[in-house]
C-alpha cells in the first residue's frame, strides 16, 4: 500500500517542533512533533483532557504555548503569542469549526458567511454574497440563507459554520469536535459535508470522537495521551493493531459500544 499524500515528500503545511504548553503547573502539551502535508486528513483522538483540542487551537493561535515553534504555511508561530507575521495573517489561511458552532446570532446565515470575506479579504458585497450562495449550496443549506442561526437545527448551524470558514478560502481546516454538541440524528449530515471536503483535497485536522468516521476519512490517526503523541499511523494500523498499551486501552473503551 502506498499513501501518495503523506509519502510524496510534499512540503508540509503545518510543522510543529518541540511544542510545549502549560496551564499553570499542568503540562498540557509535551514535546509535540508533528507535520501535516498538503491535502492530508489527520484525525486526532484521545480522552477528554488529553490536550487534543489544545493542540489544534495552538495552530491558529487561539492558545499560546511556552516552548517550541509552529510553522503554518511559511508563517511561524512562536512561544507566548509571538509570531513572524501577524496572527491575523495566519488565521486568514486557517479555517476553524468549533464544537459549539459559534455562529454570530445577530447576523443572518448569509451575513455570517460574508462578514470575513468582506471585512478581511475586501470582497464586494456582491462577490461575497455569490460565493456564500455557492458554499451554502455545497453544504446543502442554501434555502436557509436569510434565516438567523437561532432558527436552525444544530446540524444546520454546524454546516453554516463550515461554509463560513470555507468562505475565506483557507489552505487548512481545523475541526474541534465538530459533532460533539449535536443530536445523534444530525451527526451524519455534518460528517457528510466534511467527507466531501476531504474528498475535494482539503488539508484537514480533526479532533473527534467519531471513530468510524476517523477510520474512513483519515490518512493518519494520532492518539494523544496526557499531552503526548503516543501513537500515530494509518487508521487501519492504529485501530486494528495498536502498538501502545495506552492506545489499546483507550480504543478498548471507546470501540466497545
Amino acid at each position: 500500500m502506498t499513501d501518495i499524500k503523506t509519502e510524496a515528500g510534499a512540503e508540509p503545511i503545518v510543522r510543529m517542533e518541540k511544542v510545549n504548553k502549560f496551564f499553570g503547573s499542568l503540562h498540557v502539551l509535551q514535546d509535540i512533533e508533528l507535520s501535516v502535508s498538503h491535502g492530508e486528513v489527520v484525525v486526532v483522538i484521545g480522552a477528554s483532557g488529553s490536550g487534543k483540542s489544545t493542540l489544534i487551537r495552538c495552530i491558529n493561535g487561539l492558545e499560546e504555548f511556552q516552548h517550541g515553534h509552529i510553522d503554518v504555511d511559511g508563517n511561524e508561530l512562536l512561544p507566548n503569542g509571538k509570531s513572524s507575521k501577524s496572527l491575523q495573517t495566519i488565521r486568514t489561511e486557517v479555517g476553524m469549526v468549533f464544537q459549539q458552532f459559534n455562529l454570530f446570532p445577530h447576523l443572518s446565515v448569509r451575513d455570517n458567511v460574508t462578514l470575513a470575506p468582506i471585512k478581511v479579504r475586501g470582497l464586494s458585497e456582491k462577490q461575497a454574497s455569490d460565493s456564500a450562495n455557492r458554499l451554502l449550496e455545497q453544504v446543502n443549506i442554501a434555502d436557509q440563507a436569510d434565516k438567523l442561526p437561532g432558527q436552525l437545527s444544530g446540524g444546520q448551524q454546524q454546516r453554516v459554520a463550515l461554509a463560513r470558514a470555507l468562505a475565506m478560502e483557507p489552505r487548512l481546516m481545523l475541526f474541534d469536535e465538530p459533532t460533539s454538541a449535536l443530536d445523534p440524528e444530525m451527526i451524519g449530515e455534518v460528517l457528510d459535508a466534511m467527507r466531501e471536503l476531504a474528498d475535494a483535497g482539503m488539508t484537514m485536522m480533526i479532533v473527534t470522537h467519531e471513530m468510524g468516521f476517523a477510520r474512513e476519512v483519515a490518512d493518519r490517526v494520532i492518539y494523544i495521551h496526557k499531552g503526548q503523541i503516543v501513537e500515530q499511523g494509518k487508521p487501519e494500523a492504529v485501530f486494528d493493531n495498536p502498538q501502545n498499551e495506552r492506545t489499546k486501552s483507550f480504543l478498548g473503551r471507546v470501540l466497545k459500544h
Partner: protein
Amino acid sequence: MDVTFQFDWQAAISSIPYLLTGIPYTLLISFGGLAIGFLIGILFGLLRISPTVWLRIPAITYIEIFRGTPVLVQVLFIFYGLPQIIGGPVNALVAGIAAIAVNSGAYISEIVRGGVQSIERGQREASLSLGLSRTQSFRYVIWPQAFRRMIPSLGNQGIISIKDTSLFSVIGVGELVRQGQIYIATTFSALEVYLMVAMLYLAITLSLSLALRLLERKGLVGQ
C-alpha cells in the same frame, strides 16, 4: 375628627402651563447628560476590562468615586465648589448636565462591562479565527450583541437619571421641580402642584419605558 380637604382642580390645571416651562430643562439635562454619560460609559467600561492594568486602574477609580457619592453632592461640588478652582462661575444648566454625565457615566461603564463580558468567548474566537482583527471582531461581532443585552439596563439608568435631575432645583436651574416650587410660592397650592409635577415626571419616564420596550422587541430578535 373632622378632616376636610378640598382638591382644587382649578389650581392644578392652571399650574400646568407654568410647569411645562420646566420640561425643556429637565429633558435637556437628562438626555444631554445621558448622551455624554453613554460615551463616558463606553470608554471607561472598555478600559475597565482592558488586559492592561494601567488602563484598568483609572477606570475603576472613576467608577468607584462617581458611583459611590450622591449625585446631589456632585452637582453642588460642580456648581459651588468648582468655581473656586477655575476662578469663574459655572452655569447651572452646564453643572446639571455635567453631574448627570459623570454620575450616569459611572453606572453605564459597569453596564457596558457587564454587557461585553456576557458575550460567550466562542464569539470572539470564531471571529478571530476568520481573520478579523481585534477591532473588527469587537465592532461587528461583540458590540452589536452586547449592546442588545445592555438595552434594559440602559433604560433603567435613563429613568434613574431623569428623576435625579429633580435634585438640581437646589442650584436654581429652572427644571420641573424648581418651576413647581416657584409656582407654589405664590399660590400655596402644594398638593395640586406637586401632584402635577409627579404626573409630568411619570409622563416622561413612561414614554421612555415604552420606547425602550419597542426597541427591545426589535433588538431581541436573534438572541
